[in-house]
């Protein structure tokens, strides 16, 4: 933590630290591609994971001090909202990379991959992280779109990494559905640009966030609402909002475990981030409330649809995937409630959900490894058999269900306060009902999975001496639990600043 105390300036003599954030995964991808041995590749990705976190911390420090971080080109822009996404991606990235090493990277690891394939896997993971960092730092909405489409392309390959029939099916659906969705997003972006051009004239920076925010109050509401419709369908698909979420359970359940964690914890939030940027622009238009109703509507539909799927789910990873739909819905509802409190709650929730869900996916991977199946019907009594993994699943599961004192409860509390405070009683009540159903569904599964009688077939030993994986999961659990009652000042500042980026 001492590194945070460094002044950011000396480092920025070479390049702004925000650029370092982008450069690290890109460089790591190259290094991995030319690595010769397994330990080399493992070392590179682990190093990149830690380096990214360090660079992100420095960037955030700069953001907190200066308001924005310095960037080499006007195509990039880093403010508190970006900083939050960077933080998320780097943390989940680190945990997932560390897990990957123990899960499939080291020789003798349970899912050990052949070296050339491992190399490709690592390179793609690094590229995946790069595209997400790029999304966070993009100023131009076009670049943002490119970065998100890039995440689709790279992660589709990662989803299909196992080359099984199911993985192939999942990745194909993921590719097509998200590409179609993103095509709509692109169309929406163009319409937004059209609105910008009509207001600010045909300038090259017309798609820049900074420009759009500046001209925001003068944008034409008709064009913007058309743009919002397409952007919401587009990025909403990627963010997993129902009924556009159909790719999500497939991709999350068939991807390798660390990739599932990345998809759920980081990728969905990148799409939500794009939506927030759009929302921020529309918020500048006086009297423009359409996007709030859309966020609210999609959010509630997502929560309820997910709730039903959760009730009858039979696959561990799909269960978690539907919880991602649910929580993206909650975030969306928070955005829909609006106000700086609603946004604060939504962003706080983003952080909490990312950490919790990633931890759950990784621990779920452990469980699937030991149990030899993801089928919920076939696993029970895991808490006694696998105390550590079981405990993480228990804590994570309860946190996910919105039980205090874990962090998700706190953010849901804030979101509901924003709802009641903003006069959205019906919305807030519906959200509560949805959450109650989800709670029931999740606990139904958890109680059998963890507390039920031990199944006759014994559990296999999981990963051995997996310190990295343990560290990664521990880090996430610490975040998921700790943020419930304790929000460190810098983080709280970051969240408020990010919320004000959207609302101010």
């Amino acid at each position, binding site marked *: 933590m001492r590194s945070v105390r460094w002044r950011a300036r000396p480092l920025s003599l070479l390049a702004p630290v925000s650029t370092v954030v982008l450069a690290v995964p890109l460089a790591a991808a190259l290094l991995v591609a030319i690595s010769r041995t397994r330990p080399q590749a493992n070392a590179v990705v682990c190093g990149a994971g830690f380096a990214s976190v360090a660079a992100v911390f420095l960037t955030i420090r700069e953001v907190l001090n200066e308001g924005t971080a310095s960037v080499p080109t006007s195509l990039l822009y880093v403010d508190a909202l970006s900083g939050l996404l960077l933080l998320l991606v780097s943390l989940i990235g680190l945990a997932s990379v560390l897990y990957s090493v123990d899960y499939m990277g080291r020789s003798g690891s349970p899912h050990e991959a052949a070296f050339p394939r491992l190399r490709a896997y690592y390179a793609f993971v690094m590229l995946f992280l790069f595209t997400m960092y790029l999304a966070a730092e993009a100023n131009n909405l076009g670049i943002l779109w490119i970065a998100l489409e890039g995440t689709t392309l790279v992660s589709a390959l990662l989803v299909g990494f196992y080359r099984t029939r199911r993985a192939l099916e999942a990745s194909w659906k993921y590719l097509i559905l998200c590409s179609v969705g993103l095509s*709509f997003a692109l169309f929406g972006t163009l319409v937004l640009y059209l609105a910008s051009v009509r207001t600010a004239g045909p300038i090259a920076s017309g798609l820049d966030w900074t420009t759009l925010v500046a001209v925001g109050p003068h944008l034409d509401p008709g064009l913007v609402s058309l743009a919002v419709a397409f952007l919401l369908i587009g990025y909403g698909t990627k963010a997993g909002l129902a009924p556009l979420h159909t790719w999500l359970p497939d991709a999350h359940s068939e991807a390798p475990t660390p990739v599932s964690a990345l998809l759920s914890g980081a990728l969905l939030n990148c799409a939500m981030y794009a939506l927030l940027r759009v929302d921020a622009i529309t918020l500048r238009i006086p009297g423009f409330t359409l996007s709030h109703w859309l966020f609210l509507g999609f959010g509630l539909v997502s929560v309820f649809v997910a709730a039903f799927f959760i009730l009858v789910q039979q696959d561990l990873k799909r269960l978690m995937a539907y919880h991602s739909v649910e929580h993206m819905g909650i975030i969306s509802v928070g955005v829909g409630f609006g106000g700086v409190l609603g946004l604060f709650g939504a962003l706080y929730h983003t952080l909490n959900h990312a950490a919790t869900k990633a931890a759950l996916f990784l621990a779920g991977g452990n469980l699937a490894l030991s149990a030899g199946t993801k089928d919920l019907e076939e696993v029970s009594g895991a808490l006694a058999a696998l105390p550590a993994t079981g405990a993480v699943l228990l804590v994570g599961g309860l946190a996910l269900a919105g039980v205090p004192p874990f962090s998700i409860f706190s953010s849901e509390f804030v979101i509901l306060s924003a709802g009641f405070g903003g006069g959205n009683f019906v919305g807030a009540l519906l959200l509560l009902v949805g959450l109650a159903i989800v709670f029931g569904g999740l606990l139904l599964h958890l109680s059998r999975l963890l507390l039920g009688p031990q199944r006759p077939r014994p559990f296999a030993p999981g990963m051995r001496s997996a310190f990295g994986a343990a560290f990664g999961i521990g880090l996430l659990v610490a975040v998921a639990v700790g943020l419930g009652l304790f929000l460190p000042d810098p983080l709280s500042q970051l969240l408020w600043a990010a919320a004000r980026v959207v609302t101010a």
Partner: protein
Amino acid sequence: MLRATFGLAMAGCLLAGLQGVEVLLGAVVPAQAVSIPGAVAATPLLSLGLQEDPLSAFFVLVLAVSGAAISLASIGYVDRYVHSREAALAALFNLFLLSLLLVCVAGTVFLFLVAWEGMTLVSYFLVVHEDHSAEARSAGLTYLVISHGAAAAVLVALLGLSVATGTGQLSAIASGAGGLSPWVRDGVFVAALVGFGTKAGMVPLHVWLPEAHPAAPSNVSALMSGVMIKMGIYGLLRVVWVLLGGGPSWWGYTILLFGAASALVGVLYAIAQHDLKRLLAYHSVENIGIILMGIGASIVLFDLGYPALAALAMAAALLHTWNHALFKSLLFLGAGAAAGATGTRDLEKLGGLVRRMPGIALTFLLGAMAISALPPFNGFVSEWLLFHSLFSAFSTGSPATELVFAGMAAVLALTSGLAAYCFVKAFGIAFLARPRSEAAATAQAPPGTLTAGTGVLAGLCLLLGIAPALAINLASRPLTQMVGTSLGPGTSLSLISSLPAPSTTSAGFAPGIIALLLGLAIAGIWVASRFGVAPKVRVERSWDCGIDAPTARMEYTAGGYSQAVTRIFQEFFRPKEDVERTVAAGTRWDLLTRVRRFSEESVDPLLPSLYRPIRDGFLWSAREVSRLQSGRIHAYLAYMFATLVVLLLVLRFVGSPSP
């Protein structure tokens, strides 16, 4: 190690209790924020503050006294009867106490909710701790899910108040809630009644209670039934009286009616139970109903403009809260001793335990008399107060109120009569006569601390029955806090004292004198029996109509005992009878058939008729909805298409709705 843990719990309870007494006697504890940097700074909504006002202190005291006794009993109980994961049980037990305490002293909405859900969660783990069977898990899950729904209602109530008054501090809400619109107040009331009513076990939201309480280890059952459900009462009082400052009459009538329904339904189902702990659990429903009747009556009387009478009703509610905490903890501990020593909770397999565990039997009997509202025990005092507050409606001159209240008094009397019926059965079948099973015949005496724990509680039941002024004095500050007036002077701390007679009626009750009379009468009989030649005493077999040796199978069974009531309330119980007959060879007359086996069970009709359909409905729709994820990418694309088209059409033809 285990001993130390429970010892620590007991010490903690005693300390908390002392603090509570201090507050109740007039000390003022300043509200304070727990200083966690960041959490408070992030948003005032998420601040964690503690407060201990008189109402909190009263419930802290309720918790502390029962908690200390249960902790004492737990030392031996866990040592003897819990055979797996004792350490986890001990840890959870202490966490449970902590969460209960936090609920009482939470000073902010956020902390209250955290503690509230924490309490549910910890107790859930305690419920599923002992037994890994599907039934126990299902009981736990039912409990957890219903409680969570209730917590959502609590959240609505508190958050609604919080945002309406713009503060998360409970103390600040109270001062800001006066100016709220009736709609908001009514909404908060309904949400609070649903939320807290569920936790308290109010009919028809009680279904979780008889499932969950018996499944837990008995020391935990004692804590759940004795203390945890009181937190529902605490929350209701906190919201309705302290935060909202009372409400319109219909709030009171609503609570009164639900209370009466709880009392009656609770006791009737208790009678039909043959599982000792389930029986006790249903009695919790009954007693919560009695407490709710007091609360409801106080709201009505306050709204009619009689704060002194409202104070009387509220005193009844508070006193009964404490009394129930004492005797229900005692009874569950006693049941735990019986169940632990015999390995069964089935009344039909118990019996004769009075000889195997005389100490437990005696204390259980005292607890049973207390819960049956018999003088000179504490249960009678609080019910007397409640009868009185119901009677006092005569002085309000409102015919409707008085007729309703008279009806309620009849319900209350019926309830306490049936409770006595039920406890004669429970104690008589479980502890008296011949053992009905091998296990009961060979039961070991329970550990000393367990008996000591029940002994302490039994002593308190008697003490508060003889000198209720002790408790009423302690309740006077909470009473003043809620209804603005207490029960007036004349309450002294002497052991023999008279209950204050409200000025409007000239009724009086001096529990001390009644106890003295009882004592003198018994002494008199003893003296009389010393006169003359003491006749001989002989011990013989019971009369069995001349059959050679009476056996346990000839005893009256629990099922047989409760027949009298289940028969006349047949429509209500809808018992499922299972009769197996064999017809004697060569006859076709019913008279010659022989009933081989007869079993009867009464299931709570709310479970199959109200809750199961809801659950099944959810599952059914979930299965239907989940067919949407058909696996066909074309379908998925079509969803997307449809969404887009709908969105565009809405945009075009409806436009953006205004806020």
